[in-house]
Structure formats: C-alpha cells, structure tokens
C-alpha cells in the first residue's frame, strides 16, 4: 500500500527558483547573487522581475560572500547562490568571519549538494557541507525534501533574521508534500506514524524513507518516518517523543556520517536518552561519477539500505 502518492517529479533547485521568483514580487528587500550559475540555480524568474536586485559575481565565490555581508547593511536580505561545494567548503572562512561571526542576515542557498549531481563526480559532490555549516555558531541549516518544500523554505527564510544555509539538489524527485504548506524552521514533520522503529530523514532521503516504511510494513514492521528538514536547530522534542515510543532509530541523509544529521541526533540522544541507532549516509569516502540512482545504490543511500538498517537496529533493542 502506498503511504504517499505523487503526480510529478521535479528538482528541488526548481523549487528554489520558484521561491525566488515569488520573493522578487513580494519582498523588495531580497537581493540575489550568483557566481556564474544562473541556469543551474533557476534564477531566471527572479532576474527577469528584479534585474536591479540581482548581482552577478562571476566565478568568485569568496567575493560573493563578502559582498552579501555588506549588502545586509541598509536592510537587504542577500541570497548568495552557487553549487554546494563552492558555496560552503570553498568559502568556509568567508562565511565564518564575514557572515556568522559578524551576525549578518545572509542566506547561503546551494544546489547540487550530495552525490545526486551525478556525472560531474566527487570534485563537485560535497558530502561535508551540513557539517561545515552546522558547526558555525548561530547558523541555521535546512535541507528540504521536494520541490514544494524547497519553495516554501526559500520564502520562509526571508522572514527569519540571521544566517541560514539552505541546501538542495539537481535530480528530479517525487513532489509529495502539499503545495500550500507553511514552512516552519526547526519544526520536524511526522509523515508516517509507527511504533517499531523511528526513521529520521532529510532532503532527498525523505522519499526513500517513505518507500522504506512501505517495504517494512509488508514485513509487519511499523516504522515512524519523520522529515527533519531543519538540521539546526534540531527538533529534539519530536525526536525524543518518537524514540521513547519506538526504542530505536535510523537516520538517513545524503551526507557523510561525520557532521551530518546522524551525528546531531546521536549527540543529543547520547546525552539525553541513549538509544540503539544506525546511520544511512556516506561513511568517510568521496563520491564518484555515475547516474544519481546508481550512486545512491552503490553508496547505500536508498530505501533498500534504510530497510536493512531498520531491521538491524531493531535487533539491538
């Protein structure tokens, strides 16, 4: 039985583009910057509506972050956009000094996060960005799961005062969350109720977690699936309530174990409610070229992998 259905598949970056187009018409304080990747970031709509509020920086990401910090003075809300690798790892110090430590209201919005950008390979497939960004004091880290949620998150972060890292991707994935949803930063969403195992998923892995819950249900296992779209601040109340009920947990993300959603959850549970736990993610390796689905299978980031980890963690209860 299908727990969730969908009519179309879309890329989350197009959700970002749609959110930006909305903001171009509804929030005159939002400005956008891009480092020579307008098409990849789907910024055409924003630029068409508000050319005077768009800044092309060329292939110069460090400068883009600094200019974004400067644009906040005067009340603007800069959205600095590029690929996740170049928008986080390449410019970590610029984000640290000029944005996070300086307390600037900059939104760092990055596409092509994780393995699913595919054929370009490991040079472009950052799997460390959640860790880098969540370590920065005061930084909010968001990884929405589909087109609609990415659009809603893009719009919502304009109303939050402070630095945000918004992460999304390139492949088309099922659009299964409501079109008219209100995005609440830090509020986990219970998608499937269950009593046997908790699955905490973020980004592209949320759909895989739902598929895993369906497969587990066929085996008579009731999995609870929670969409952790905000990794920082983490909705620890929702997580605690679920693991108290199920007694075990699997986290799933398109990221390294190190620094990802999984280690945020492990840190919290270790201190507050030690619970058997398994991780679905990349275990200390770089990615490689290939089709997105092939990579997700090879690196164990799909529904099948979640099912296996769920069965394993239940045996540890």
């Amino acid at each position, binding site marked *: 039985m299908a727990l969730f259905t969908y009519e179309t598949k879309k890329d989350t970056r197009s959700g970002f583009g749609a959110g930006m187009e909305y903001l171009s018409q509804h929030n005159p304080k939002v400005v956008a910057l891009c480092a020579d990747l307008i098409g990849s970031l789907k910024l055409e709509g924003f630029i068409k509506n508000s050319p005077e509020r768009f800044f092309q920086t060329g292939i110069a990401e460090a400068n883009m972050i600094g200019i974004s910090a400067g*644009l906040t003075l005067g009340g603007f809300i800069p959205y600095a956009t590029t690929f996740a690798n170049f928008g986080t790892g390449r410019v970590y110090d610029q984000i640290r000094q*000029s944005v996070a430590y300086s307390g600037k209201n900059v939104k760092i919005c990055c596409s092509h996060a994780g393995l699913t950008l595919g054929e370009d390979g490991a040079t472009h497939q950052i799997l460390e960005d959640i860790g880098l960004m969540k370590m920065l004091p005061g930084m909010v880290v968001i990884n929405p799961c589909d087109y609609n949620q990415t659009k809603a998150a893009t719009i919502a972060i304009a109303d939050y005062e402070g630095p945000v890292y918004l992460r999304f991707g390139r492949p088309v994935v099922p659009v299964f969350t409501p079109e008219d949803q209100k995005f609440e930063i830090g509020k986990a969403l219970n998608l499937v109720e269950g009593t046997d195992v908790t699955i905490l998923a973020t980004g592209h892995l949320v759909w895989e977690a739902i598929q895993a819950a369906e497969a587990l249900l066929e085996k008579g296992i009731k999995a609870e699936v929670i969409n952790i779209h905000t990794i920082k601040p983490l909705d620890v109340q929702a997580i605690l309530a679920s693991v108290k009920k199920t007694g075990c947990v699997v986290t799933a993300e398109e990221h390294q174990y190190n620094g990802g959603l999984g280690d945020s959850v492990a840190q919290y549970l270790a201190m507050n409610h030690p619970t058997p736990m398994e991780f679905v993610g990349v275990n200390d390796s770089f990615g490689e070229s290939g089709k997105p689905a092939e990579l997700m299978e090879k690196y164990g980031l799909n529904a099948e992998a979640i099912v296996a980890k769920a069965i394993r963690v239940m045996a540890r209860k």
Partner: protein
Amino acid sequence: MQTQEIQKISSQVRRDILRMVHGCQSGHPGGSLGCTDLLVDLFFSTMNLKTDAAGKVVFDMDGTNEDLFFLSNGHISPLIYSVLARRGYFPTAELATFRKIDTRLQGHPTPHEHLEGIRIASGSLGQGLSVAIGAAQAKKLNGDKSTVYCLMGDGEQNEGQVWEAAMYAPHHKVDNLIAFIDENGQQIDGPTEKVMSNRDLEAKYKAFGWNVMRMDGNNAEDIKNTLNKAKAELGKGSPIMIIMKTEMGAGVDFMMYSHKWHGVAPNDQQLQDALAQLEETLGDY
C-alpha cells in the same frame, strides 16, 4: 577641520595605541601608528557621520545616510578603537580593556560584542573590500548618496579575494567607494618586496579599472588634499583606490623603518621613551 587640530588628535591616538598594546602586552602597534593620520582625518573631518541634536555621534548597524568605514586589515585594531572612542562612540575608559577577558575590544574588531562603530569582523585578511563593495551597492539600491571607505594593508594584497573584489567593483561601476592600501612595505616575515612582491600596485588597479591616486599617508596636508580630490571623482563610474605610503610605527622614532614592531608590545621603558615623543593633547584614558 584644520590639519593642526587633526595632528593634535593624532598625537593622542598614538599615545592610546601604545598604552593599549602595553597594557595587555599584545597587539599590533606598527601598522596602527602608520595609519593614524588617515583614520583621524576620516573620522574627525572627512566622513559625514550620523549625530544627534547635540552633535554626538550615534551608531546604528545599517548606517544609512552616513559615510561608512571598513577596516580590512583588522590587526590595527588599537587604532580603530582609539579613534572610535575619541570620536565619541564609546567611553575612552573602555580602551583600558583592550584584548582582556570579557572585553568588547577584542584582539581583532568584531560586531559580535556589540561595540559601537564596528560593522564587520576583520583580521582574517582579504575580506574587507568585498564587504565594503556590498555596503556601497546597498547604498545605491537605497538611493543613499553617502560614501563607503575601506582600508587594506599592502601585505593583504597577497590574498586572492582582494583581486576578486578588485575585478568586481569597476565591472559593477561601484563609484561611491574610496579604498586605501597602506603601503608600508612590511609584512610579518619581512619586507613585502621579499615576502611576496606587489610589484606595481598602481598599474594593477588601473588595469582592473580603478581610478588610482597616491598620497603620503603620514602627511596630514597631503591626506586632506588627496581626499578632497578623490571625493570630486565620486559618481563618475569608477571606484577609487588611494595607495598611501606610510611608515610603520610613524611618530615613534625607534619603531620606524622596520617590521620589528608589527606585532610586538613595548616594555615599560620603551613605552616611556615612546610617549615622551607624543604630546598628551586630549588627556590619557
């Protein structure tokens, strides 16, 4: 303001710098002393700063409708702290807390501790020009006619981000920006020419599309004249770069002509010898 008055304030600011660095036995006196004349002119004369009805400066983070200054070479923090305090942004007594536990006067400037006058963290070099350009573009978007100023070091020109910003500002016609390079010819490991030669900075910035000027950064008269000339060039389509020749340690004979005092604090005797060369014009903190 007459240059004589500016020189009086500069003398006091130099005393503050030496006493602050001596007080915590840490910090960067050389570059701070070298850039004193420029910052005193900017904050006491050239820049249009927001004030209340009584004429006292008031600080708000956005700084709309006032001139803004960004210090990119943040290690000369004693200078900016002294100038801000003497200009009235916070009590001069607070200068005594420089680099000490629980201070707002951190080793390098930061808005994190809510110190009035500081809008960006700096000291991780190469980032200030980008921030200044962003602030200048924000002013343009807001229809705000005021000017943005930014100071960098010459050693700082080693940083790649500086050249990303150097390329960006003329391309986007950021012509409400006056930037400075403190050309003291020294960096931590020795003379700039030996560590990493800047070769011809004037030719480089000209080639990038900047309106480039030169001045003697330790001559109050030349500073005033050059700033007036630069202001007349604002709004003409190009950002302005003033390459400013200074002496590290300017005002204290034994601190000049060497990079030795880049990041070294004077001992008790050295402090006395240095203060003896600088008139106490506004009262020590």
